[in-house]
């Protein structure tokens, strides 16, 4: 088992998120307000990055936050951090929305997507994620260009790896490998352990 090394994870002020979620699970609405304050920014950020449409993003982000309230009793700390649980949910919901809306549209928007390959330099008005952003940005730079591009298209644009392959005109296997290798490199750079 690897040593846990936390680097640059913004330490949320106030009670620990996991603790808060346990109280939410018992139906405490005040605790949920604190959870909201800790996660609403990241949740909205993820959803907006994937959807790009502001109005739709807020709608999906709200749904995700309500889902956090509803399903908090089912959160299992042994499966991962509370933030991970919530952001995974947010990303999943955003991706679901993209795929339902844009099922085939991605192909038509090839050019637009390529032109829009998410860059980390895009401005996001933000709260206290500066450190985190710096670190992720630094670690993304350790990826090869093609790894970075593939990971960004999958995560930030919500594309399937097939779509990524099509977009970049690469064999499926290559994209698969790149997504995995890219994430592994990121994991090691960020010192993530689970």
């Amino acid at each position, binding site marked *: 088992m690897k040593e846990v090394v936390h680097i640059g*994870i913004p330490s949320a002020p106030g009670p620990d998120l996991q603790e808060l979620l346990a109280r939410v699970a018992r*139906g405490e*609405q005040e605790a*949920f*307000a604190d959870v*909201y*304050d800790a996660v*609403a*920014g*990241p949740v*909205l*950020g*993820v959803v*907006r*990055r994937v959807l790009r449409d502001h109005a739709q993003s*807020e709608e999906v982000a*709200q749904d995700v*936050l*309500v889902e956090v309230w509803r399903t908090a*009793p*089912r959160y*299992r700390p042994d*499966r*991962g*951090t509370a*933030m*991970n649980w919530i*952001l*995974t949910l947010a*990303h999943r919901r955003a*991706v679901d929305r993209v795929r339902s809306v844009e099922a085939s549209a991605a192909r038509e928007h090839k050019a637009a997507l390529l032109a829009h390959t998410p860059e980390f330099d895009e401005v*996001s008005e*933000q*709260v206290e*994620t500066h450190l*985190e*952003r710096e670190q992720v940005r630094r670690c993304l730079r350790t990826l090869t260009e093609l790894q970075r591009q593939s*990971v960004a298209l*999958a*995560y*930030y644009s*919500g*594309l*399937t*790896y*097939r779509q990524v392959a099509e977009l970049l005109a690469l064999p499926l*296997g290559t*994209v*698969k490998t*790149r*997504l*995995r*290798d890219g*994430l*592994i490199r*990121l*994991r090691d750079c*960020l010192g*993530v352990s*689970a």
Partner: protein
Amino acid sequence: MTRSDDPHTLTGAFALHALEDEERARVEEHLAHCDPCAQEVRELTETAARLGLAVATAPRRGMRDDVLRRITSVRQDVPRAEPESGLPRTSRRARPVSRWALAACVAAAAAFGGTALWQHQQAQDARDQTHQARKEAREQSQELASVLTAPDARTRTGRLADGASATVVVSASRNRAAFVAAGLPEPPRGKVYQLWFDDDGSMRPAGLLSPGRDSQAMLMDGPVDRATGMGITLEPSGGSAKPTTVPVAQMLFPA
């Protein structure tokens, strides 16, 4: 699964939600049987979340009130049965992945050339009780995992009465053995299943199975040393120093 289409290589795409539903389901199935893959997915999912954390953005001020208002009319889900509150036998699919029960599957599958000896249900059962055991004995479970995943782990499975099965996994390099049973009948009141190392006909205590569960995975107490097999007997609660009943089952260790 075929080599050319190995779900293992899809862990990255899985963590990024970059799979279509059908593939996702297939990978999930694979993860239930592949501990290293499940662990990798956990780590890569945490990594993906960091990509998300880095793009946080300030919500519109009024959104907070909107959300806080909405939750007042949303009923919360019922929690899953907690291990402390009894025996969790429902929602198996939703149970957390356990490192070592899955490792058992890997070890067994490896030892049997990848045949589907370990059926999904058994894995689920093992996982159910794994969760509880892990809470009680994290260290032991890590040791167990190391036995089950040892490169030289050898496995033998036997059928017991009433459809129960028992598998023993032995690692010579670690000098430890693990025992996995499924479908064991409930011991009579006041009795407990006890495991034994068979040192050439002399039985050495190797631990008790926790009562109240019909499937078990545990690290046998003590080193394997010269033991050539193992046995299970029914003993009075608390166990005995020597077997007091005819063994329920005896198995030779795998060569």
